């Protein structure tokens, strides 16, 4: 695969009616990643996704996908909006014909095979499918466009746990079969563990965390130590979160490079959810790529 970015943003900002939905957002994500875009409601997730697929124009700054300005890459981008783009009066077969009509590179064999495997009847009206089947149909239509970048806004919202697992399996299988980059937003972080490999945390319109997930968990530690030792830890490391229990203080710290702690203290790597929550509770803390990485992308 060529070395290009699936998504780049430089000083990107978007204002609606005088309010900044997105402020000074700069990002650079290599192709082939499965990116989790997380953050509380109103953090700017949908705004960023809409800018990436050309549904919105930036107020300031630039955004590009697949190494090109958004407008010139759109034929290689598929977008799955939160409100699934299905016409309730259309049958499944109608939706497939519609997709083929609109997309010159339509993968008809794939779409038919996948729906048959999922047991979604071609003659059923889309409005009469279950929530999970609608999500699977919408995902099938998006993948059948043969995109290089697939953007999904809350693809798992309103689905039961089984349907969430099945949609994620479908998405991961598509990533394994095709050279596909994915960005998906969610506010349920547990669904993203093991499926996404890159994390962006948006908070109040700003990028708070951006990086490879394994790298991020490597760079953080959760430890518990006596309350009296907290200042010495805080001297050496950035304390992202601090909590107290039974005379011990538990800390989530950012520990770049060789982090050595008192061997008596229990130390472990944080889980993805733990890391996200710790940052969301401290909107002023940020972790962005290492200086060497951001320098290389300039």
């Amino acid at each position, binding site marked *: 695969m060529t070395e290009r970015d699936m998504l780049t943003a430089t000083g990107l900002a978007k204002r609606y009616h005088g309010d900044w939905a997105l402020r000074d957002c700069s990002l650079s994500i290599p192709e082939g990643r499965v990116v989790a875009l997380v953050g509380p409601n109103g953090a700017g997730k949908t705004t960023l996704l809409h800018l990436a697929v050309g549904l919105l124009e930036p107020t300031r700054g630039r955004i590009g996908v697949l190494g090109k300005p958004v407008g010139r890459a759109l034929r290689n981008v598929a977008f799955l909006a939160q409100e699934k783009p299905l016409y309730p009066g259309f049958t499944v077969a109608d939706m497939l014909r519609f997709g083929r009509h609109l997309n010159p590179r339509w993968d008809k064999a794939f779409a038919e095979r996948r729906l048959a495997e999922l047991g979604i009847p071609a003659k059923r009206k889309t409005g009469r499918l279950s929530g999970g089947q609608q999500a699977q149909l919408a995902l099938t239509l998006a993948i059948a466009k043969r995109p290089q970048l697939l953007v999904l806004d809350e693809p798992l919202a309103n689905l039961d746990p089984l349907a969430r697992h099945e949609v994620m399996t479908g998405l991961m*299988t598509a*990533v*394994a079969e095709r050279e596909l980059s994915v960005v998906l937003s969610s506010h349920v972080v547990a669904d993203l563990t093991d499926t996404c*490999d890159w994390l962006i945390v948006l908070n109040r319109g700003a990028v708070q965390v951006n990086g490879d997930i394994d790298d991020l*968990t490597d760079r953080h530690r959760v430890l518990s130590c006596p309350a009296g030792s907290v200042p010495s830890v805080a001297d050496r490391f950035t304390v992202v979160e601090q909590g107290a229990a039974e005379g011990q203080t538990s800390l989530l710290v950012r520990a770049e490079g060789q982090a050595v702690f008192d061997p008596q203290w229990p130390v*472990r790597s944080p889980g993805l959810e733990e890391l996200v929550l710790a940052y969301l509770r401290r909107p002023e803390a940020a972790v962005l790529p290492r200086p060497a990485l951001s320098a290389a992308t300039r």
Partner: protein
Amino acid sequence: MIDFRLDRGSGVATYLQLVHQVKSALRLGTLSPGDRLPTAKEVVEKLAINPNTVLKAYRELEREGLVSGRPGLGTFVERTLGGAAFADHARLRGELARWLRSAHAAGLDDEDVRALFESVTGAAGDVKGAAG
């Protein structure tokens, strides 16, 4: 073929769980040289994990010389792990099962057995370390 499972609450990185399961299968002889590991797609279809995680586990196994990837064909086991010949496994397993029955008869539960086993293997490690 090896059937991967995930323990999502374990706190062990997913790719490491896959690495450990392959190594364990090599030690037990359920995987042997020439066997093919499942493709990333086969693993993904079962576990709904990122295919890059599977590839990362296979790269780690390849780095350790345990498997090798053959373009277009798949990833194959190169060598086994574990010192003792598999022929000895059956005998050792039988002895261990007999020992376990006598431990249960003496009133030890599984956790007692595990603690005892770990204390003995730990002590054996100390002896080995002291001798070396």
